């Protein structure tokens, strides 16, 4: 594990590594604020973005985000409908907030760099 992390650190020139799906997930965790756990995140993404999310994909993404320190989790209550299994609630950490900010600002700077004409043609093209 030690070796793995070192390699990752060496390879990661980028400041904040955030994949597309991970980004969607962390944003949704933000939207749900204190109500973010597995099922609610899944449903939120499905209704907001209209794409289906498998439990597997979501849990993997959550684990990665947690490993990277972008989100943190806390145990919730266990309810009848979950046959006594506890919920695990997620919250964005300070580092996570920075990561979102970073991604957003890079995106925006890229967007702004597109010459206006390129976008216009695109719209006409449609």
């Amino acid at each position, binding site marked *: *594990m030690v070796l793995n992390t070192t390699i990752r650190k060496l390879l990661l020139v980028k400041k904040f590594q955030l994949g597309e799906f991970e980004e969607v997930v962390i944003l949704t965790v933000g939207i749900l604020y204190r109500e973010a756990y597995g099922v609610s995140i899944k449903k939120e993404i499905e209704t907001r973005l209209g794409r289906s999310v498998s439990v597997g994909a979501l849990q993997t993404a959550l*684990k990665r985000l947690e490993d990277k320190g972008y989100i943190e989790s806390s145990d919730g209550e266990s309810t009848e409908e979950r046959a006594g299994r506890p919920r695990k609630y997620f919250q964005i950490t300070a580092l996570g907030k920075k990561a979102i900010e970073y991604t957003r600002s890079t995106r925006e700077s890229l967007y702004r760099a597109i010459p206006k004409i390129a976008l216009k043609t695109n719209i006409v093209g449609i």
Partner: protein
Amino acid sequence: MRRNSSPPRLFIRLFRWFCDESMHPYIEGDLIELYKERLSNYGKTRADLRFIIDVLLLFRPGIIRPLFTNQNTTSMSIYKNYITIGWRNLLRNKGYSLINIGGLAAGMSVAILIGLWIYDELSFNKYHDNYNRIAQVYCKKNQGGETYVNTALVTGLGTLLKNEYGNHFERVAMVRARTEERVLANVEKKFTEMGFFIQPEGPAMLSLRMKHGTIDGLRDMNSILLSSTVAQKLFGDADPVGQTISMDAAWDLKVTGVYEDIPKNSHFHEASYFATLDRYLNGWASIDAWDNYHMYIYVQLKQGAELEQINAVVKDSMLDHIGKETAEEEKPEVFLHPMNRWHLYSEWENGFPVMSKNLVAVWYYGAIGVFVLLLACINFMNLSTARCEKRAKEVGIRKSIGSLRSQLVQQFYGESFMVSVFAFCIAMAIVQLSLPWFNSVSGKSISIPVDEVIFWLMTFTFVFVTGLLAGIYPAIYLSSFSPVKVLKGTFKTGKRGATPRRVLVVVQFSVSILLTIGTIIVYQQLQYAKNRPVGYDRSSLIGLRAASPDFRGKYEVLRNELKNTGAVIDIAEANYPITDTRGWNPGFSWGEKVYEPAFNTIFVSYDYGKTIGWEFLEGRDFSREFASDTAGIVINESAAKIFGIKDPVGEYLKWSPGRDRGTFRIVGVVKDMVKGSPYDVTYPSVIFLSRDDMQWLYIRLNPAVSTHDALGKIEKVFARLVPSAPFDYTFADEAYAAKFAAEERIGKLASLFSALAIVISCLGLFGLAAFTVEQRTKEIGIRKVLGATVANLWQMLSKEFIMLVLTACVIAVPLGYYFMNTWLQQFVYRMPLRWEVFAISCLGGIVITIVTVSFQAIKAAVANPVSSLRSE
């Protein structure tokens, strides 16, 4: 089926097994929450399916628990490397992996289903706690030079065994032979139920699981034990113990207990009630009679008693009681037949045990299961060896770096085990989802025995053996490559690799074609028997048992009232049902001529012929207009043949079965009616006219009135005239169709298995064709450049495979002929074996092959030679 709202347990377990411990409670909670929501939205099947998909999709890095916690151990890391390489190989050739795993999974699911079925057959009767100590009393008898083995015995024997031989037995219980169909009623609620009349010790011997009341509840003559289903039907959720119900509106019985329903794989599964034998015998038979054979006798041996020893003791116990003459002539020999042999070893021929139908079925399905699995394994072998050229370089490099051959064998075995485990998971999903359907086809109620250690042991062995079988060829063949040759590039798979592959394809197709032939013949025979003329009109004919003393003397009233409704054309009575061959009597003679065999004798009322739609060959039906018809008889074609009278109508037959019953005039000859097995000969019957009340009512509905309306009108008449009996009718055509259930089951299962066998074989062929084409890409390119047409190339590529399938046909046809001819021998009424069946099966095999191979062949032949020649 049990309705539960929990997700498939097997997959929860699978998930717990592979999931990282720190994550599993949360994710499982999510899964269950989603499951419950889907359950209420889409129903159980879809919820189950989605759950299974979710679990399988969770099988991914990040969620799977770490395989090895300590990563520095070197001997472990090489295994890890094997897994990595194996995994990458699967991913790189997605198409082939799919064929491989899919084929193996299909084969496995068939094998698992069959395995569960066989397990169910072998565990028959194990529900009873005293399984190893219960036995049924049998009697071997000599009758007319043949030895018969009987289970229906006299009450005297049971009483004798209890009193004189009681030191060997813990319990002895007599039961009225056969289940008795009775009407149980709690005031307004009436149901016709099957059950047993048994002695008080019976329930404890059978270890019924009591829900209410006591297992010892049959001490009083007027008591009854109910199954929980019947108790529920009669009393709802209330505790019925102490309540009174009536049986056939004749007896009031006190409910003394309620037992858990006996499962389907028990000999006693039909028992909806247990009433007392004393109640049954009361008034007309004694508990110590030696002349009426109408009892089953069950015994429970004392702990540690040896069956053989007891058999020696009781062997001659009947001799002293049945009169010297009979004893000398029949030589009755009593023996005990243990419960663990009841289901599979209870068929005798001339006094010797023979292979029973159930046992044949176990072997038959077992063989199919093994074959289908073998086909899937062959696919795996074929594809692996075909791909060996691609792996050859890897083997070479591994060997030159210092890999031992044994390590390579391990590696390839590891890969085949990995595939086998994957396939197993998919197979389990398929089995889980198809079980309800399988149960309905096979008439069982099987579930996956998740709690049984033996089941997991079996599945483990099963996965292991499959992996071993599937991996044996690649492991030995691939690991044998010489590194120098392989790396220098002079290595050629050539003929050496191709011959075994060809043999395997031939085996595969032989099995597939064999199964196809079998399926077609089973269906044809079924259809042939279904189309057999039955000698009466089954449509809109209903029958019911007059199951209440209220019927007595009401026949004429009932008949008139029913006819007045306009919904009924005619109604008649008989002493036995029309779909049954009960009632056998000897003792007919014509003048000097005495006829040896027993005839099927039934008694009917006037109008019987009209009601069921007899077809007369000669003479006429019974008629009220001729007073002499009370001493008249109608015989059927077969009987007429045996009597051998030239013009039978008007002749007189004497009948004295033991005592003289008088002389009867033949008034008509009817066509044979198929009453028993539709595959058997029709029995010679003599039909008498009777004016007594009889057990079976037959009603011909008026086709002008809709069945629904007609039944409603009839029911009203019944409710008014015989309120104590439920209107439980059966349609004659349905009762007749039920005779085909066993063969229909074989047909359905056989078609499923052969369809799967063909699909698996085709998958294999498809993969193999793809590889052949790939290997010959350059050759095809050059041929094309030199002027070969697409048709030429297609022919060249397909020829090899078609030859293989033709060889398979040559093997399958004689085998199919032999097996199916043997199978058909069991039916007297059977269709002739025709060559068309074999031709069609072979042709089908060839066409499927051509289609499968052509897809690849044409793709390769059409491809632009430039692209294939330019590569590299």
